[in-house]
């Protein structure tokens, strides 16, 4: 070869090698539309303090200035700004700052009043002894952004809209147990129930109130397409809608007439829509964005190197789990499901692969919940011998020596569906796949897209196993959603699990509002589930929020909405 050709040849080779090396690093991480269906209802109801892990946001006694703008990076574009018809958490975030629900859930996972004077409880008589009557006393100093006073008529209108047959409200669980809503005067609302809905207050927390004077005359069939659901103007919240550039950003400004004195402190909040995780991180670094929510574990190291950005990490009340189809012939055997739970190392997985960023999970109720009981929970230790023993005793043996156990013509070989897009998920599944192969269980990882998982596989039972996370757990009554036999009330029992004894306990726990009784019953339920698990839980999702130091006042609310106290935020340069 001539000299110049050879030179070029080597140069090209070098460039190619460099390319391959770097190209393997960054990939666009589409924040999969998984936020859609998994996150609907609001958070848990426990009253114990929840200490956020690794919280680095301190309350500095420095001078808090009024005014200023905070820029939030949204990883998805909101669609409709009303809890009951949107499936997106980002929409609920926006709805909560432009408008308000009757009550909210704070960072300590306690109910706090928003539009009411106090949260109804058994003690103050707001909830009747039998749990069938809820009385709310509304504040009398609240006005909509257009000046109209907020009254009980708005609340009743909201309820009527949720239950209207022509309204594309998503699930109506719990709402259809209400027999009537009374409004004896402008500032009192009474909900009458036919059967106890122990999770009612949780459901209320994501329902922002509709303005009856704006939407009252609109035919319900046309209601969901009304502009109000895209602007929340007028609303009841600390911020007012200014503009929404589709696909680009949303701008909201301070409501000077907000009913709490001195709040909000900020002048404006800009919500930029940036779907790529890398771009979001870049903008955090350049300061074009002050904060973002729901950041994934793989960006943590990068964020930690950015000087004026702090990382606030909180354990969510939402667990990662492997949904197991209990109607699959092999998986219907409780011994198999138990063996699967003992057959892999949760601690090893979370400490090494996930670098300690995630806490192991063993069931659906988070440790921060009042219904959680350490004694009752079966914390499956990594015990492959026990797993093998369980399988042997149940008759699952590897006869043909291929490493996979069989019995009566069925093999312990399954397809596990994974939502494509996040490398970490594949790593987790590969880890588990490897360890399960040592107890004679084979899984094949199949990548599908969000819509196939949530729109086809899970709802129609068209799968063996699926890896995903469960929605943010509301009141533990939602435990019933995942475990009640499918023929009972509408359930999220994707695993088609059915244990009639468990049903009795779960239904009894829902039928009373006495928290001690319920906690007792849930402990029993947890024990039962521990012996006969439906699914394989992996770990509690960790919510990472990188936030610029100039923003003060952010408090993560793991069971609720990230921007729940946006009116208390301020900036300090």
């Amino acid at each position, binding site marked *: 070869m001539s000299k110049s050709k050879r030179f070029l040849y080597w140069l090209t080779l070098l460039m190619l090698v460099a390319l391959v090396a770097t190209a393997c690093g960054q990939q666009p991480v589409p924040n999969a539309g998984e936020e859609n269906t998994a996150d609907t209802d609001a958070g848990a109801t426990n009253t114990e303090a929840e200490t956020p892990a690794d919280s680095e946001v301190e309350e500095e006694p420095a001078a808090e200035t009024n005014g200023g703008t905070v820029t939030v990076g949204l990883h998805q574009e909101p669609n409709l700004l009303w809890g009951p018809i949107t499936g997106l958490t980002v929409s609920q975030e926006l709805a909560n700052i432009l408008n308000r629900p009757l009550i909210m859930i704070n960072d300590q996972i306690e109910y706090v009043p928003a539009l009411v004077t106090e949260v109804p409880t058994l003690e103050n008589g707001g909830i009747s002894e039998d749990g069938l009557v809820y009385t709310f006393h509304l504040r009398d100093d609240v006005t909509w952004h257009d000046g109209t006073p907020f009254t009980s008529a708005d609340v009743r209108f909201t309820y009527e809209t949720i239950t209207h047959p022509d309204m*594309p409200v998503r699930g109506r669980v719990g709402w259809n147990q209400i027999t009537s809503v009374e409004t004896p005067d402008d500032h009192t609302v009474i909900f009458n129930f036919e059967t106890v809905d122990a999770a009612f207050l949780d459901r209320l927390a994501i329902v922002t109130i509709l303005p009856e004077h704006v939407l009252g005359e609109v035919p319900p069939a046309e209601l969901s397409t009304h502009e109000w659901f895209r602007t929340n103007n007028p609303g009841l919240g600390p911020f007012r809608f200014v503009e929404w550039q589709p696909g680009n950003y949303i701008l909201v400004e301070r409501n000077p007439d907000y009913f709490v004195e001195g709040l909000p402190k900020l002048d404006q909040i800009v919500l*930029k829509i940036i779907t790529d995780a*890398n771009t979001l991180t870049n903008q955090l670094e350049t300061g074009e964005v002050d904060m973002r929510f729901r950041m994934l574990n793989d960006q943590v190291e990068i964020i930690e190197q950015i000087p004026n950005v702090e990382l606030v990490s909180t354990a969510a009340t939402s667990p990662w789990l492997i949904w197991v189809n209990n109607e699959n012939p092999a998986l219907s055997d409780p011994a198999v499901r138990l063996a699967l739970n003992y057959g892999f190392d949760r601690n090893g997985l979370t400490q090494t692969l996930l670098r300690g960023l995630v806490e192991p999970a063993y069931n659906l109720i988070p440790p921060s919940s009042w219904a959680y009981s350490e004694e009752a929970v079966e914390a499956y230790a990594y015990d492959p011998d026990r797993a093998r023993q369980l399988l042997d005793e149940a008759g699952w043996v590897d006869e043909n020596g291929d490493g996979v156990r069989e019995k009566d013509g069925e093999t312990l070989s399954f397809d596990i569906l994974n939502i494509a897009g996040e490398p970490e998920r594949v790593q987790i599944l590969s880890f588990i796949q490897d360890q399960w192969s040592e107890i004679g269980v084979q899984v094949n990882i199949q990548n599908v897209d969000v819509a196939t998982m949530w729109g086809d596989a899970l709802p129609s039972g068209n799968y063996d196993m699926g890896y995903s996370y469960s929605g943010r757990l509301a009141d533990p009554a939602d435990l019933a959603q995942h475990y009640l036999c499918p023929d009972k009330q509408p359930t999220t029992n994707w695993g088609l699990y059915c244990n009639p004894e468990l049903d009795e306990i779960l239904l009894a726990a829902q039928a009373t509002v006495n928290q001690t009784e319920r906690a007792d019953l849930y402990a029993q339920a947890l024990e039962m589930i521990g012996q006969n698990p439906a699914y394989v839980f992996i770990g509690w999702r960790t919510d990472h929020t990188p936030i610029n130091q100039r923003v003060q006042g952010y408090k993560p609310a793991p069971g609720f909405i990230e921007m729940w106290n946006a009116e208390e935020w301020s900036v300090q340069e």
Partner: protein
Amino acid sequence: MNFLVRRLLFALPTLLVVSLILFGLVQLAPGSAAALYAGPDAGPEDMARIERLLGVDQPAPVQYVKWLRGVASGEWGISFRYQQPVTQVLSSRIFNSLQLMTAALLLALIVAVPFGVLSAISKRAWVKHLSSVLAMLGISIPTFWLGIMLLLIFSVRLRLLPSGGNSTIGMDFNLYDRFIHLIGPASVLATLYIAGWSRYVRSSMLDVMTQDYVRTARAKGLAERIVIFRHALRNALLPLVTLIGLQGGNLVGGAMITEVVFAWPGVGRLLAESLTSRDYPVLMAAFMIMALLTVAGNLAADLTYGWIDPRIKLE
């Protein structure tokens, strides 16, 4: 004229067939839009209600006819996800995508033509080798990598360019601001076209340079510069016209990845979203618009070709 009329008449059944195929594909995709919208808490009653309200409870042919009738009267349906008329959802985004694509195509033209010509006529070996290598790089480098690298270097490290978006928020329309935001994504998009087009121009030039009339022009004693630019280049560029015309459809939806990386508020990103949430009305409308633009682009290319080259008779 006959040609034009005939082509327009052909366009209609073409688009109809395209819409049928699209609709079929959309129906075949696993994952029910209603189940996705309704979410995990919905029971059978809720599901039935949502299916009715979204209009997906009807059998597929009925849905198709309904959609067709709507389109004929200008109603493209209501987006499932946004509960807004599809036209509204698309309109502002289409404009943004058009901006981006047009800038990218113009940039590509400006760079590809001289580049291709140079690599064709240059006598030096290193020029030819370098141009081949660069072209190959341009085609092989993935858009998202290029985009992220560009952002990392020019935006994060050097702070020369913004990290995405199409304008600074809160600023009134400012030409310079828009331009600065456009450079990044447009360059990234243009790379692929530059690489492909420059090779095309090069081979077209090489082809033309061996033609008799070029030899004649040289024999006449014309300066090399005039031979190349007045005679050869014009003819060499003709096939490029067709290529550009075929880009018609891409004008609106062709920049999905770039738009995601640069947070550009265009149709590409909307398409990505709508695909994951199975938002059929938006998908159908967006793809039909792309099909329409492709047909129109093709037609425009043919007409332009016929107009530029007097030897070609359009029949």
